[in-house]
C-alpha cells in the first residue's frame, strides 16, 4: 500500500472476499424483483386500435356538439322573424293583440304614423301639433 493511498483513506480497504460479499449483497437488493416477472404490456395506452377508436370517438363528440349548437340556434331564434318557426306564434296572436290595434294612437309614435291622416278631414298629427291655441279677447 502506497503512502499516498494511506493518507487518503479514512477506513480499512476491504479484502477481495469482503468486496465480493459486499457487491453480491448489494446487487441482490438492488436488482428489482419485477425483472423476474413477465413484461406487463399496457392494454390501452400503446395499442394502435385504441388510438383509432379514440379518434373516432372525438369526431363523434365534436359532430354531436356542432349539431346541438345548430339546434340551439334554431330554437332560440327571435319571435316574429319567422312566425312558422315558433311553436307558440299562433297562440300569442289569439291571446294578445299588438298595441297599435288597441289604441288609437300608437305608443311607438313613429314618424310615418305622424305624417298619416288620423281623421276624415285629412289633418295629420304633425299639423295638429303645430296649432297654437290663443284665447279670444273679450
Amino acid at each position, binding site marked *: 500500500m502506497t503512502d499516498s493511498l494511506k493518507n*487518503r483513506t479514512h*477506513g480499512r480497504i*476491504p479484502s477481495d472476499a469482503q468486496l465480493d460479499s*459486499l457487491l453480491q449483497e448489494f446487487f441482490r*437488493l*438492488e436488482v*428489482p*424483483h419485477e425483472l423476474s416477472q413477465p413484461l406487463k404490456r399496457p392494454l390501452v395506452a*400503446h395499442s394502435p386500435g385504441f388510438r383509432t377508436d379514440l379518434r373516432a370517438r372525438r369526431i363523434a363528440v365534436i359532430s354531436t356538439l356542432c349539431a346541438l349548437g345548430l339546434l340551439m340556434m334554431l330554437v332560440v331564434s327571435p319571435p316574429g322573424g319567422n312566425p312558422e318557426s315558433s311553436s307558440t306564434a299562433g297562440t300569442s296572436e289569439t291571446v294578445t293583440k299588438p298595441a297599435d290595434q288597441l289604441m288609437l294612437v300608437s305608443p311607438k309614435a313613429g314618424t310615418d304614423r305622424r305624417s298619416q291622416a288620423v281623421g276624415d278631414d285629412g289633418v295629420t298629427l304633425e299639423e295638429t301639433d303645430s296649432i297654437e291655441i290663443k284665447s279670444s279677447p273679450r
Partner: protein
Amino acid sequence: MTSPVAGKSSDPDRDQMIETYYREHSRELWALFYAMCSDAERAYDAVQEAFLRFYDYRGEPVRDLRAWLLRVGQNWLRDVARKKSSSCRLLPGLDDLSKGQLSAEDKLSMSERQDQIRGALQELNDDDRKVLVMKYAMDWSAAQMAAVMDCSPAAIDMRLSRARRRLAEVLAERGFEHD
C-alpha cells in the same frame, strides 16, 4: 442476436417472441442501463420503455434487437436525466426481502449502506462500473462480458481486477464500514 422482426400489431408470434426475449434478456439490459445511470428503478423503467416501444414499432425489420433495445433505452435515460434529478429513496424491495424480520432501524441502515455503495460505484468510470455490474448483478463469465465489451476475456479479467481495487479505495475513502 439478429432478429428481423416487424409486423402487424396483433401478430401473436411476434408478441410471443418479444415476451420470450424479455424473459431471457431483460436482466442483462437492466444491468447495462444500471451501469449508465446507477439507479435501479430508472434502469428498470428504461427496460420497460424499450420493450414497449418495440411492441409498437412498425418500421423496417430490426436485425439486431439487442442493439435496438439498448439504443432506445439509452436515449430514454438521457431524456429522463435531463428532466429529472435522481433522488434518494428507500429500497422498496427491502420489505419483501426481510419478510418483516428487520426493524425499521435495520432497514434504514441497510438502505444507507446501499446508498454508500451506489455512490462509490458512481465514482468509477463507465467501463469499470459496467464490468462490476455484469459480474455481480448478472454473474456473467469473462467470456460473456468480453462479447458485450468487444474485447478479450483476459482484458476483462484485468479490467475487473482494476475496477474492484478502485471501488475498494473509494469505499475506504468514504469511511465505509464493512462487516
